[in-house]
């Protein structure tokens, strides 16, 4: 008797929840059907990396600045789904309808996982929305390193190939590729040691377990400022304009004799096949955000990023050109795993 009572109340509860679910769906549905005022509900933003990381921070600042400038009528719904160098989260976003109510990150990591054979989809199988920033690479050494210039390091690596240990992040991530590009441009071979995170790279550099490291300006800045780490060169075309006491004297790789410039980038994309009006709305919103003073203060300057704005088809074209370059490099270095 008692059991039946429990059962009945469970059924009743389930019906109630179902009813509420349907009701809310109906409300949302009608809003969407009107179509004219996208976004009619909060936009979920799938961050394919862990909270607190570089991409996560970027998205959270987009959300915050978007709210401050009243660009987004409602806050973004930020959902972290990390794993597999971004593959898990991006796959999840791609599995959602391309109705403008799921967006995710675009970055060169999609290209790299594709080339390393770890992506279940082609790198460009997205609706490209906008590229927002560039992050450069630096070759850094410990303050007491015998290598005073990039030329010293290159000479040492040339004298004894594969003995100079250079640390980077990951074993099938962009640092591997960028080190391979550096090796090709300078005619040397390093002994690349791939750690799990940028933090570990700096730790092992400071501990003297490796001879040099490849790191983003943001990863090395505090250590440089404290005089623990020196930068031998940066991968940008021009010297970096951040904190001049630290970066003024850091030459570009080109100035230091290695004819190469490269960068990483981050941006926003959605599942393939989003409607043009929605893409345009998002491009417009992101443009407003990235042109603002708040964006420069809260993101670019704080995290040592260089702002760019490349939208839609142009962004896709750049990604495709980059893919071709990276593919050639990986073939040359024997890294290409994709069949």
């Amino acid at each position, binding site marked *: 008797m008692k059991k039946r009572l429990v059962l009945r109340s469970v059924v009743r509860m389930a019906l109630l929840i179902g009813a509420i679910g349907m009701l809310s769906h109906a409300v949302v549905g009608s809003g969407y059907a009107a179509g004219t005022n996208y976004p009619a509900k909060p936009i979920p933003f799938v961050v394919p990396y862990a909270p607190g990381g570089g991409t996560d921070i970027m998205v959270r600042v987009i959300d915050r600045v978007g709210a401050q400038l009243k660009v987004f009528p409602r806050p973004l719904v930020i959902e972290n789904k990390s794993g597999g160098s971004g*593959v898990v989260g991006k796959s999840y976003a791609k599995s959602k309808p391309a109705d403008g109510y799921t967006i995710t990150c675009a970055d060169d990591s999609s290209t790299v996982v594709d080339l390393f054979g770890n992506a279940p989809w082609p790198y460009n199988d997205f609706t490209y929305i906008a590229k927002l920033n560039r992050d450069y690479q630096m070759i850094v050494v410990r303050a007491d390193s015998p290598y005073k210039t990039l030329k010293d390091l290159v000479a040492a690596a040339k004298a004894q190939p594969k003995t100079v240990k250079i640390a980077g992040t990951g*074993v099938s991530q962009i640092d591997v590729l960028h080190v391979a590009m550096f090796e090709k441009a300078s005619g040397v071979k390093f002994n690349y*040691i791939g750690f799990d995170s940028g933090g570990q790279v700096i730790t092992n550099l400071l501990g003297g377990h490796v001879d040099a490291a490849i790191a983003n300006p943001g990863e090395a800045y505090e250590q440089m400022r404290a005089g623990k780490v020196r930068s031998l060169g940066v991968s940008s075309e021009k010297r970096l304009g951040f904190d001049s006491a630290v970066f003024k004297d850091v030459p570009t790789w080109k100035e230091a004799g290695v004819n190469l410039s490269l960068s990483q980038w981050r941006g926003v994309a959605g599942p393939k096949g989003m409607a043009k009006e929605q893409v345009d709305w998002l491009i417009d919103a992101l443009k407003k955000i990235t042109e603002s003073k708040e964006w420069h203060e809260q993101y670019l300057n704080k995290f040592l990023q260089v702002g760019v704005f490349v939208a839609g088809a142009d962004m896709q074209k750049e990604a495709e050109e980059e893919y071709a370059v990276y593919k050639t490099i990986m073939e040359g270095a024997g890294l290409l795993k994709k069949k």
Partner: protein
Amino acid sequence: MEIIQNVLLGFGVALQPINLLYCFIGCLAGTLIGVLPGIGPVTGVAILIPITFGMDPITATIMLAGIYYGAMYGGSTTSILINVPGESASVMTAVDGYQMAKQGRAGAALGMSAFGSFIGGSASVIGLMVIAPPVAKLALSFGPPEYFVLMLLGLATLTRLAGKNLFKGLGMGFLGMLIGTVGLDPVAGVQRFTFGRADLLDGIGFVSVAMGLFALGEILINIEGSPAERVFSTQIGSLMPTKSDWLACKWTIVRSTIIGFLIGSLPGAGATVSAFMAYAAEKKASKTPERFGQGAIEGVCAAETANNAATGGALVPLLTLGIPSSATVAILMGALMMYGLRPGPLLLTERPDFFWGVVTSMYIGNVMLLVLNLPLIGLWIKILKVPYPVLIPIILLFISLGAYTVGGSYVDLWIMFAFGILGYLMRKFDYPAAPLLLALVLGPIMEKNLKLSLKMSQGSIAIFFQRPITLILIALIVFSLVWPFLVSRFSKGKQDLELPVVDE
């Protein structure tokens, strides 16, 4: 005298009413996050970061730090009461804590966890104040070869977690290592045992495995038994550890605090490894190691003291060098940067108010947690009075939610269910779960660092014998393997007499 000034400066900051309030909120939220299975400090801190925007950076950090060490306190509760490790660092708490609960000593186990946590946590804060710079140097001297040998030392302790049958224990250890190989190869970057699934690229999640083996396995076994045999029908007993408990745990607390603090400060080891190591060390030090796994209070005390001591240790590299030492600390570092603070070698000199404010708030927080948690024991313990048919669905709901929250993926749920069935079978045929979990945690770290070391040395194993720290660790391994034989030979006559008592 400088340190006294600094501590006073710190208290000046930490005792401001707003900071006290947020310290309390952080500790409370941390306790809840620790109690909820699956939602560990990593997820907890990540979820709450957005709330802290716009707050004063010191206040925000005080709150986030409170969540971090508060979660370590809370993690013991469900481990002890219902065999559900609230987060990965509490797995070893469940081993003996749950047995104690079965014997009606849940109160003593919870009480000892709270006190052990308090002492370990507070001592590690003092360590952070006094010896942070040398400890940070030590942490830096750990490169891949050192980590490899350290993990080897950890695995050498595996034999001590093996339980009655060494063969079964080692077998479970190998299984754990095997499961740990799923995912990307740590150096070559090729996929192993992923069956082409992106969800498996990062390997099989520890939380899902632990909750499956422990919680789900236990539930399945309990459903099978007749109502009379049910665990929770036992009496609850005293709410506090007895005098003899204290005597038993006296040195455990000291040893576990040191182990926890030091291992916690190593980037790449962390609270989980330190709890394992402290537990194994206690079992080794104990005169009656056979009680471990059967409800030894030293086991609970070792694990809880160590994982709380590790929280202070973990902040050493962050606050002195600007290097994150664990996943949670990495998130904390991201948050600090969003507040406009740059953790680095200069933080201590440029923002002493920040460093000392946060550190002293941790001391206050530890007191708050003790005061908060002791009365809660009486409340938590009432969970045991909930009839099992009602409790099971609730536990199932929470562990499923927990497994899902870790990565936001259903795959973790399936993994948990699969390991639940395995856990049931293991219990049925008396295979211990702890060696599997230890190997699952240590195996991948060990493999990665072995491969990196050999890459550094271009294939020569001499690298492990040329560095002072590795040599010390190798000596420890040899010692720990040879010692039991020496002891048994030395006291052979005596043991012959005792043996029948040991083996029931």
